[in-house]
């Protein structure tokens, strides 16, 4: 856990670095779309290869950073009291699948970009778009399944509930009495405000 905040900080710096790098690139004419010639309220993406060929790798790296950051936050949330993160293997398995959806999306898009429209449709959508709709949306449902199935073991179990109930009673007694509710957890904490 001690290293996780540093890792998250480094990922954030890398993400800021990607945005900074993009600011110095020569953008394609259609980098963020162009106006549709016939329908004024519509935009066109136009030539996908022209706008994405040089930045597809950076785009993939950006997506990986986002996924790793999100998964890092899940570990951050599950961590308790200096113990190892519970269910690390299960979360990592779901995370690999989640990352796999992005890999498949980028792989199929690189082929779609070279031959627009080729590859047919899957459940009503072009294959890379289907990966986005069904894979990128669908795979995180595994994290929901984990949350529901393992809530008592990994999130908030009976032992913690008992501990929390005792803490709550103590705080409530202190609040209604004259005793100060709690003590700061370190000597410097008696200052009214930190920072």
């Amino acid at each position, binding site marked *: 856990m001690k290293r996780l*905040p540093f890792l*998250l*900080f480094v990922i*954030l710096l890398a*993400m800021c670095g990607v*945005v900074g790098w993009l*600011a110095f690139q020569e*953008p394609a004419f*259609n980098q*963020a*779309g162009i106006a549709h010639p016939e329908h004024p*309220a*519509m*935009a*066109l*993406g136009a*030539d*996908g290869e022209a*706008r*994405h060929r040089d930045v*597809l790798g950076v*785009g993939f790296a950006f997506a990986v950073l986002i996924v790793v950051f999100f998964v890092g*936050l*899940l570990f*951050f*949330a599950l*961590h308790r*009291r200096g113990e190892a993160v519970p269910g690390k293997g299960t979360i990592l398995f779901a995370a690999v699948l989640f990352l796999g959806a992005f890999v498949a999306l980028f792989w199929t898009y690189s082929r*779609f*970009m070279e031959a627009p429209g080729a590859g047919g449709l899957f*459940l009503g*959508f*072009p294959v*890379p*778009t289907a990966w*986005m*709709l069904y894979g990128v949306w*669908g795979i*995180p*449902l595994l*994290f*929901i399944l984990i*949350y*529901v199935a393992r*809530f008592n073991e990994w999130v*908030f179990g009976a032992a913690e*509930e008992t501990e*929390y109930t005792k803490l709550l009673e103590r*705080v409530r007694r202190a609040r209604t009495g004259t005793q100060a509710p*709690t*003590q*700061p*957890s*370190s000597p410097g*904490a*008696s200052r*009214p*405000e*930190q*920072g």
Partner: protein
Amino acid sequence: MEELRNVVILSSVGLYLLVCIGVGLWALRRTKSTHDFFMAGRDLGIFVTGLAVFSSTLSGFGFVGGPGLVYRMGMSSIWMVVCSSIGFVLSFYLLGKRIRLMAELRDSVSLPDAVAARYRSESSRFLTAVAILLGVMGYLATQILAMATVLQDILRTSFGTISLEACVAISCAVLVFYCVTGGIIASVYTDVVQGLVMMVAAVLVLVAAVAAVDGGFAGMSRTILADDPEAMSPWGTLGIFGALSWYFVFALGGAGQPHVITKMMMNRRVSDARHILPVSVGAYAVSAMLWISIGLAMRALVLQGAHETLPNADAAAPQFLQTYAHPMLAGVVFAGLFAAIMSTADGFLNIGAAAAVHDIPRSFRGKPIANELLWARIATVVIAVIAALFALYSGENLVALLGAFGWGTFAAALVPTVAIGFNWKRATATAANVAIAASLLINFGTRLFGYSMPYGIDTGAVSLMVSLTLFFGISLASKPPAIDEDVAAVMDM
């Protein structure tokens, strides 16, 4: 039936508004204290909290702006929907347990209350309350304007043109009535009605959209692919970085929306979070079908020449309903649209009132003001009136500016401070204050000066990245802060 279209729509909307008033009157009897007014007595069940969380997340923007964005940009804006699964996961993993424990432990009635307890800092409370109040004003003004514009359109056919001011007055009167009488209790129970109406509307619209275009979604895809393959690619017309930046800010930003996370403080038992998460995600997934189906159907129909080109993208949803939906369906969807707008607006009114009468005075005085419940009701009216005046007279650009400012600002200010800070004892009050200040400066500054990011990257996403980086960097570079023993114990659980 077609000749009765407008009567059906008016009746549906009228019936829906009456139900809201009824819920307000019912909730009045259950609202006896500030605690009830702001926190619903922390006694909400799984289904109620789940639907309240989902319906607060999906605002009127999802029902009107969402289909409009799909019409304009193809698949780009679908990233705002696709992110919902991991977004709800992040919100519940990071906050589902923690915020509920903290709120009960310190008897918090607002998010800034919990922030002040976590950081032992009145300045953090003050800055959080200010960020909330600024965001609320902008968001609320856009919701009121949207509600009044839709009402004006509905009334035009039967009663001729009615002034926008009158429509603002009618729609605000209902909203303010149930928010003032029943506070958050009325808000969450109307959210349940509103959430159910939105889900029914979305399923019916999906069926209508698939029937309107030959070949259903495959037919829509083929038509759009023939015109512009990139529009049907996963990135849409906006491109890879614009789409991914939306994914980032809308997924993680959900954990920073005060009107949503405040609802996570209200469930009866901590362990209810385990069931609230799937209820919220399921309800959102059903309702988001409206966003996707109308936008793609209208783009395909216009490209096929089956429908005339739209004057503006936001006309996609109203024109689809007028032309392709059965009058009964149009009635349900228009009621659903009001539901979507009001379910978000009532949450804003409640947290805005809490910031104005509870948090800001308390950050200076160190104690609550007398007659807080009465003042909360007065503040609810005052905030609604100011937002309504702001919506009517400040000019469309300023309203749009502040409306767009809302989600990104909340995300950049509150994700580090609340979602990260409540899980990380090393986080300091200084880091939280800097993150909030940076989010306000970046979001307001870039929009005020009209600066846009390269490659269509969303400003809110950059603001979130920067505020998170500052938050982690400052906290890591500082000495570990002191935390109250009870708060530390909760953070260890």
